[in-house]
């Protein structure tokens, strides 16, 4: 029994998922259900001069057609919930349906509600809209230049904010340093591509005034909060349910205009309305990730010691400031420029720029992969310039373990860490020395073999609420749990977080099973429904286990303490004389006195004989607000062979050694790493959202956006070290994003290493065959 915590048991959510019996949002069927479809702008930036919906309204099966005029005064706008301080953030209005102007290709112009999916789709073609096209610019650096088209009248120059952070004196250090390197890095737009598209089913009862909204959400409580603003409906009239959610990767954090429009329709019509996006709609309208143009520099000494890093970053916001958009290139990016290293001098400047592209928000890792990528690319570039081995440079600059907790130059305090062993383990697993020998030999034969290292830290387990407030995040970052014990000793746990594939129905049951000494089968984890679960802030930022899991543990401990009181009473003993056997309270050293958890559950719930002052029932709640973020870390190493003729990159091996503290369920942790790594490899090698000059998304379907396939991806070898975090009672650090943080850097470092004999120092990801070939051609031309 004592080993359930830390055991790789099978997931408890799986039986319904592998048999088709799970309910995702689009599976929700209701009597009288109508279907909605959006008419979306074909232009990136245009003035709307006419909308005529009369033909659509007259079409078969059409129930209603709404445009901005119908919403006027009845709804709010789409809020931005992250306003970093001291950066003069400008948040222009984001209407639910576009009124005067459209600002990206996909901006919603009208909503059709009809009796069937097909009729709604048919009617879209009957809406007549005249547009007066205006200039487009999707590149954030170009959009920030004078003369670029202006997308919002109240944001002249398109600069939404200029934010900086740092510490020490980077300017002076760069003067003084012996070795200096710089790179221009483009962190391309990515399409999150949860395989389940977004969907919303709104059902408004005019009699009760209650809106029930099933929505593909990572955070139903945030959705309730933001929908109340968009719909001007008080929160207690809104029930948000995130049923089964088919992946999010950040893209299901934001509140979108779509669920507000669908809810508005239901409120107007008094009948349920369903909308589910197509994939091509998803690619246009669901948030995108990354989108930075970065000028970055690193400096240090000839002995390999890194002393400074500085940057100027143009971070695309897209057409509007999405829910968490402005916080990602700032707080979640700039604050982690120190990486795993002691770098005394740091200066970061980030310009958040409005463009005519789809809004940018959190995509797996959100800001931290961008930081890890630029830091790790710089470390390799610096090591080469200093004539040092990249592994040795990392070792030399790691923050030593005895320094934790450690405050880095950007001002954040790392909770715990021991970075050297993870690097050593990864190098041993991949046989670093052996590979270097093999590489040297291959080079004599004209073959391009390379090895890439990425060492990372990330800031996650978001986070203390006080810090959330200080950094302008418009929400709390605690989480919550109610542990309710039924008379027969079975348990339901209601949690504020909202897992959607991460397996917390299993891991949290393991936490509770460990506390109570009962089988996991006797425990059920309930999530995703604002009506039944306590206020929480959702599943993102690798926070669910660190924050909500801690709340679960604390609530369970409170239950256990109450059970102890009752046991002491029943045994006529002092509480201090009792001991927990693992499954029961008993008088110390007297096994015959054991009161099992089940006995005490019954006693508490029937309340026939309770101690004075003890209330009936056996349940407890807890709100856990951590004292700090957690900082998982690790090192990934990969080896590649580059085909010098075709530019194709073949990953030979990929090794990930991560430290996310103790593993509650090691199999689940490993699965999180696998998926994260492959997303990072996709980013490194093949994923990119491409727009044309007029702002049309060219990679608008899966025919052109290269989601990694099984046949393209390597096996991922994993190992780990364990360094507990002191900031939560489980000691855990979060593993959901870990795999993605540094994997793109490891792969690109490997390819650049392979091509180093040609003098290649950098290639922007994704390293498609065409790009790699072009880089080789340019290098060969340059050498001539």
């Amino acid at each position, binding site marked *: 029994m004592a080993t359930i915590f830390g055991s790789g048991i099978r997931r408890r959510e799986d039986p319904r998922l592998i048999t088709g019996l799970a309910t995702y949002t689009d599976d929700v069927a209701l009597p009288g259900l109508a279907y909605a479809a959006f008419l979306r702008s074909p232009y990136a930036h245009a003035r709307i001069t006419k909308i005529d919906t009369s033909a659509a309204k007259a079409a078969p099966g059409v129930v209603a057609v709404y445009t901005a005029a119908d919403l006027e005064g009845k709804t709010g706008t789409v809020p931005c919930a992250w306003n970093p301080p001291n950066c003069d953030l400008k948040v222009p209005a984001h209407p639910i349906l576009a009124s005067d102007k459209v600002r990206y290709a996909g901006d919603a112009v009208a909503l059709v509600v009809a009796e069937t999916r097909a009729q709604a789709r048919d009617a879209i073609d009957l809406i007549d809209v005249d547009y007066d096209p205006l200039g487009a610019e999707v590149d954030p650096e170009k959009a920030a230049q004078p003369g670029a088209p202006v997308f919002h009248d109240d944001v002249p120059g398109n600069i939404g904010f200029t934010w900086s952070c740092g510490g020490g004196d980077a300017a002076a250090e760069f003067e003084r340093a012996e070795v200096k390197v710089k790179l221009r890095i483009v962190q391309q737009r990515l399409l999150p591509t949860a395989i389940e598209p977004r969907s919303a089913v709104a059902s408004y009862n005019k009699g009760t005034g209650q809106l029930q909204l099933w929505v593909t959400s990572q955070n139903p409580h945030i959705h309730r909060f933001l929908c109340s603003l968009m719909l001007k409906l008080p929160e207690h009239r809104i029930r948000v349910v995130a049923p089964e959610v088919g992946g999010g990767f950040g893209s299901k954090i934001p509140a979108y205009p779509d669920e507000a429009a669908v809810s508005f329709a239901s409120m107007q019509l008094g009948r349920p309305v369903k909308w589910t996006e*197509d994939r*091509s709609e998803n690619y246009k309208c669901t948030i995108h990730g990354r989108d930075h143009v970065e000028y970055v520099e690193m400096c240090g000494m000839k002995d390999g010691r890194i002393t400074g890093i500085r940057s100027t970053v143009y971070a695309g916001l897209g057409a509007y400031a999405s829910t968490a958009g402005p916080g990602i290139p700032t707080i979640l990016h700039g604050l982690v420029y120190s990486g795993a290293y002691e770098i005394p001098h740091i200066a970061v400047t980030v310009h958040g720029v409005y463009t005519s592209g789809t809004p940018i928000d959190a995509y797996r890792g959100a800001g931290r992969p961008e930081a890890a990528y630029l830091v790790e690319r710089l470390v390799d570039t610096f090591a080469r310039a200093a004539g040092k081995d990249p592994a040795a440079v990392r070792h030399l600059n790691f923050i030593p373990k005895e320094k934790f907790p450690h405050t880095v130059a950007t001002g954040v305090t790392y909770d715990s860490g021991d970075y050297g062993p993870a690097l050593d383990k990864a190098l041993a697993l991949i046989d670093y020395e052996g590979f270097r020998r093999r590489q040297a030999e291959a080079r004599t034969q004209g073959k391009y073999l390379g090895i890439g290292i990425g060492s990372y830290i990330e800031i996650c387990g978001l986070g203390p609420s006080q810090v959330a407030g200080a950094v302008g995040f418009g929400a709390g970052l605690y989480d919550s749990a109610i542990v309710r014990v039924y008379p027969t000793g079975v348990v339901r746990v209601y949690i504020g977080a909202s897992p959607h594939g991460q397996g917390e129905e299993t891991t949290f049951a393991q936490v509770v099973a460990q506390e109570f000494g009962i089988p996991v089968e006797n425990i059920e984890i309930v999530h995703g429904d604002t009506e039944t679960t306590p206020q929480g802030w959702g599943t993102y930022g690798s926070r669910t286990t660190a924050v909500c899991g801690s709340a679960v543990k604390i609530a369970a401990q409170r239950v256990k303490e109450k059970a102890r009181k009752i046991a002491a009473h029943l045994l006529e003993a002092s509480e201090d004389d009792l001991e927990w056997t693992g499954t029961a309270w008993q008088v110390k050293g007297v096994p015959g006195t054991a009161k099992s958890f089940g006995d005490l559950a019954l006693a508490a719930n029937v309340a026939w004989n309770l101690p004075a002052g003890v209330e009936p029932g056996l349940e407890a709640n807890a709100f856990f607000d951590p004292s700090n973020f957690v900082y998982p870390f690790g090192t990934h190493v990969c080896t590649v062979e580059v085909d010098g003729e075709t530019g194709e990159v073949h990953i030979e091996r990929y090794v990930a050694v991560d430290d996310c503290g103790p593993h509650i369920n090691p199999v689940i942790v490993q699965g999180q790493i696998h998926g994260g790594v492959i997303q990072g490899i996709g980013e490194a090698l*093949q994923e990119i959202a491409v727009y044309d000059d007029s702002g049309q998304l060219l*990679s608008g379907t*899966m025919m*052109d956006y290269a989601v990694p396939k099984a046949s*393209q991806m390597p096996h991922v070898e994993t190992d780990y070290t364990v360094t507990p975090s002191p900031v939560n009672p489980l000691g855990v650090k979060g593993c959901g994003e870990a795999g993605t943080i540094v994997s793109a850097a490891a792969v690109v470092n490997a390819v650049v290493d392979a091509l180093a004999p040609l003098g290649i120092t950098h290639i922007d990801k994704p390293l*498609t*065959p*065409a790009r790699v070939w072009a880089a080789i051609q340019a290098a060969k031309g340059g050498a001539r």
Partner: protein
Amino acid sequence: MIPATFEYIRAGSLAQALALLGSHEDAKVIAGGHSLLPVMKFRMAQPGTLIDIARVPELHGIDRHQGDLRIGAATTYRALLQSRLVSEGFPLLHECVEDIGDVQVRNRGTLGGSLAHCDPNSDLPAVMLVLGAKMVCVSAKGTRTVPAAQFFTSAFSSALQDGELLQEIHLPPLPAGAGTCYHTVAQAASGYAMAGAAVVVTKAGGKVTSAKVALTSSGDIGRVVDTSAFVGSDGGDAALAALGAAASALTDATGDLHAPADYRRHLMGVVTRRAAATALSRAK
């Protein structure tokens, strides 16, 4: 994603299919539907009528016929892959089909459907060209046989006339001892070739005695490389390089977001050279 409305008629026989084709002007023929339905879902194609020929018995079957291999146009890729007549007699076709689309596409997609679609980025036209395939086209007036070289007229346009269907594909036997290879480098998303080459070669006494080379994604459908200099050579590095250069020279595809024009041209040379080298190594 829902297509616009249309009328649907399933043909039970070849005669019925041809009659329907004659009487429905805005009709499109559907077999597996894996080229047509995706564009219909995006409403880029809105035919008034679909004539389903998937179950027309005369369009199925793989057998030997007058020395050729005869393949019914509605034969699925899956059936091709499972046919020993194909894998043993035409390993080139097997090799090509193995990588078309994915399992699900191969289970539904048909040889004739793909060929009639004439997508210049499709793998099969090049293979048909080097195999010297003959296309049997049928209409109410009867049948005619069109060599592959004349069948693929231009991108998305075949020699099929109004009221005509592709009924069978006939493949003459490979020359004795021939080595074959189909080699592509695919774009990562769709799996379509950025460049591809199909090769059939024979050799004797250290010399190349015959060679046929055709290209995929070269800019137009049905491009065949002039192999006159390659034939008679030793098939060594220099000869292969020259063959690759000829393939590059023949490639004028415009760039797209996966393969800029210069890269595609270069890549065509590489895949052609590699395909030819592999084919030579397989020749006996």
